[in-house]
């Protein structure tokens, strides 16, 4: 594979940036009022149909537990008891903070290491650069299910199995090639004259990176942060495999276990689903632009 092949296999990287670009209209609107009404109905139907499961989830979570299987669609009274049970009795509070710290550490690790290597691959000259770069990218499309078994064995051999730190290391390691690829693209778009100017001023490579280039790559860093936050927060396969003690689990595998134990207690179950999803939804609504860019990039993983 040549360098162009690799970037050609990731055209989403280019399109993502345009997603929130201003909408441009190309052809005349359907002239007949009939066609427009039909189009509107389709969009309305799809939009409502998509959001409906979430509405039902919220409505179920605020029901009195004895009305779940009998009452009408709208709850007759609103109760937050299920949230209290989920947070306190099921101790989601604990698992929530496990997810928070694991996500924060992973994001910091991935961003700091991928900006460094992305910058080096974009702007510095050293022998073997192209070969190492292609090697890192060659595994982008390897499905996680293909390496989960040897990862389990490896962590067991390193005595890092059932260890949250071990899982964070795996998260950072498996995320780095893709984030490096993104950061390299961002650094590549910055003018090299800035580096030359920095050199003339006697700055070291480190301070050129840290003081001049990194601040200019802030939009790229934001995309990587948001993308990595979402990936780590929602990750299930590795967390469920590499951690075993119930009290070590972050939210996703904990929800999976809860689904077995509370399969008949729908208010608590839906409250737990809501609590798990609130952080990603808040970030999504507030930072939609970077979020959509991050996720469309992430889709190619």
């Amino acid at each position: 594979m040549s360098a162009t092949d690799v970037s050609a296999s990731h055209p989403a990287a280019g399109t993502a940036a345009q997603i929130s670009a201003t909408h441009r209209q190309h052809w005349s609107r359907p002239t007949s009022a009939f066609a427009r009404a039909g189009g509107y109905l389709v969009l309305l139907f799809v939009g409502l149909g998509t959001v409906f499961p979430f509405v039902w989830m919220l409505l179920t979570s605020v029901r009195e537990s004895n009305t779940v299987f009998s009452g009408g669609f709208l709850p007759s009274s609103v109760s937050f008891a299920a949230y209290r049970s989920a947070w306190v009795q099921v101790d989601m509070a604990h698992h929530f903070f496990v997810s928070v710290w694991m996500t924060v550490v992973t994001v910091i690790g991935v961003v700091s290491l991928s900006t460094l290597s992305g910058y080096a691959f974009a702007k510095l000259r050293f022998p073997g650069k192209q070969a190492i770069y292609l090697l890192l990218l060659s595994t982008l499309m390897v499905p996680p299910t293909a390496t989960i078994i040897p990862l389990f064995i490896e962590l067991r051999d390193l005595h890092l199995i059932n260890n949250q730190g071990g899982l964070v290391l795996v998260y950072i390691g498996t995320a780095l090639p893709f984030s490096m690829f993104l950061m390299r693209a961002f650094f590549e778009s910055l003018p090299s004259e800035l580096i030359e100017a920095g050199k003339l001023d006697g700055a070291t490579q480190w301070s050129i990176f840290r003081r001049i280039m990194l601040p200019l790559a802030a939009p790229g860093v934001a995309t990587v942060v948001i993308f990595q936050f979402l990936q780590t927060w929602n990750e299930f396969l590795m967390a469920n495999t590499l951690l075993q003690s119930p009290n070590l689990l972050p939210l996703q595998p904990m929800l999976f276990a809860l689904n077995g134990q509370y399969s008949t207690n729908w208010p608590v179950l839906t409250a737990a689903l809501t609590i798990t999803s609130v952080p990603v939804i808040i970030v999504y609504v507030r930072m939609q632009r970077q979020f959509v860019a991050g996720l469309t990039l992430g889709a190619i993983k």
Partner: protein
Amino acid sequence: MGTIAVATVSTRRRRSSSRTDAAIERRWGYAFILPTVAFFIAFVAYPFIRAAYLSLSRWAGYGTVEFVGFHNFVALTQDPIFWQALRTTILYTAITTVVQTALPLLLAVLLNAGWRGGVLFRTVVFLPAVVSFVVSGILWQMIYEPNFGLLNRALRAVGLGGLAQGWLANGTTALPAIMFVSLWMSLGLFMLIYFAGMQGINPNLYEAARLDGANSWQQLRYVTVPMLRPITAVVVTLNMISGLKVFDIVYTMTGGGPNHATEVLGTYLYSIAFGSRTASIPAIGYGTAVSMVVFVLAMGAVLFQNWWTRKARDERD
């Protein structure tokens, strides 16, 4: 004489300083990539090479690793559950790829006609792509629940109670039910990818088509679709890869059941290696052989996309 000597000295000095500059840059370059490369070797390259080796071994996860050549792969060909998982994975991938390539395109074309509330629509339709597979899986498990689930209650409410059933407990409906959740999760994502691509089409092409008397349908057929072909290639590949590696959603909703009806390669290799459902002795070698099959299929999809993207570019340009 004197000036020449000065010139030589200064050239030499410049050359040697640029040589040290290059050496310094080289050192910084290696230092900057070192942590990334170390993590890559430890958690990507090494496990992958080890997987390739283990797939040629007989090993329960402890004791000695016995090299058996292609024995595991030969055994796979005689394993009916493997064939079923392979068939189901390919069926799942084929159907989700076709549906999740066509419907988002149609929706993007419709959205692009310009509507009041279009931005809100984009926000809402994208929402399921934000929550995790586990959350979606559990939520839809409740929706599909036979007695009190939303779907059966809705069917009964409109007089179609005869259709009500245990959607995930029935071998014929379980897989389509999971595919529908996959569509629900990815519709907005792929719609936005197409939508972004449509913003990049040169408006003059539509202008020219209109001057030639093309109607809306013909503009779609002869301008939008051909111009979007490289993006369509991406969407197809994304769908193929995520179909081939499908795990979370099946594992959460059915665990591969009922009676292996929704067993895919991901859930099958998981149960072989970690034995959670089969309660058999974990067979690490055999499980990694299945994961090599997943890997080869995924690489096939990537090569297919590279070929198709290049072809689409050549045809368009």
